């Protein structure tokens, strides 16, 4: 009964159980980390602003994004996915969230960045409500662990507005 195969099987079972346990513990250890990220976004220019043929307002703008997300990285972090979204309310929709730019940060060294960019994704409304619209720019991040639970959080920056006239 206590053969070679039996012992190998028992060892493998126990080893895998322990491996699962240490992975769970490393995932839990992420909770000890209290990050303090910072970010600043400036809208430099509205390149163009018009109504498309489908009747939806669309904007193109140039932004300056700087952020320091180094404190998000722990030993169990595979990457941080960071993106900037415009958030606003319209008579039809209680919440509109439109991603404008995103990026993948593979390591802590790259987590302090500064970028000058136009919006990577189209800033299009459902309808024609963007004239003179006030909106928030929110920097979201999703922390991808090597194993375990994913974390997400955001910084809201308010006080942005679009021009009243199409251009």
């Amino acid at each position, binding site marked *: 009964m206590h053969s070679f195969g039996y*012992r190998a099987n028992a*060892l493998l079972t126990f080893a895998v159980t322990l491996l699962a346990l240490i992975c769970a513990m490393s995932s839990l250890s992420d909770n000890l980390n209290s990050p303090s990220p910072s970010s600043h976004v400036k809208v430099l220019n509205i390149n163009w602003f018009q109504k498309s043929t489908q009747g939806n307002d669309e904007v193109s703008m140039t932004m300056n994004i700087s952020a320091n997300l180094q404190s998000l990285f*722990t030993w169990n972090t595979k990457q941080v996915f960071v993106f900037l979204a415009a958030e606003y309310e319209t008579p039809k929709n209680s919440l509109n969230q439109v991603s404008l730019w995103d990026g993948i940060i593979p390591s802590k060294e790259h987590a302090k960045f500064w970028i000058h960019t136009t919006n990577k994704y189209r800033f299009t409304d459902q309808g024609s409500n963007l004239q003179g619209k006030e909106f928030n720019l929110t920097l979201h991040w999703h922390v991808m662990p090597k194993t375990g639970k994913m974390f997400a959080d955001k910084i809201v920056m308010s006080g942005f507005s679009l021009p009243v006239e199409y251009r």
Partner: protein
Amino acid sequence: MDWQGQKLSEQLMQILLLAFAVVAFATGYVLGSFQTMLLIYAAGVVITTLITVPNWPFFNRNPLKWLDPSEAEKHPKPQISSNSSSKKKTSKK
């Protein structure tokens, strides 16, 4: 492998693996490297396998002394059966 050896190998396996897991986690956490943790643990599993799975001579230090069958016939003991069956059960575990 004899009975004592089986017990020894099982305990060795559990203690070694647990020790390696603790060491791996601590090292990984302190160095902040997930990869180091996995490498240490993998090495630990390999070492433990080499120590406890093959039938090493030191697991056979308490060989069974079987009674000669002709000897056993001379001393029939009816109450033994319950005793031995319970023993068998615990040894299997």
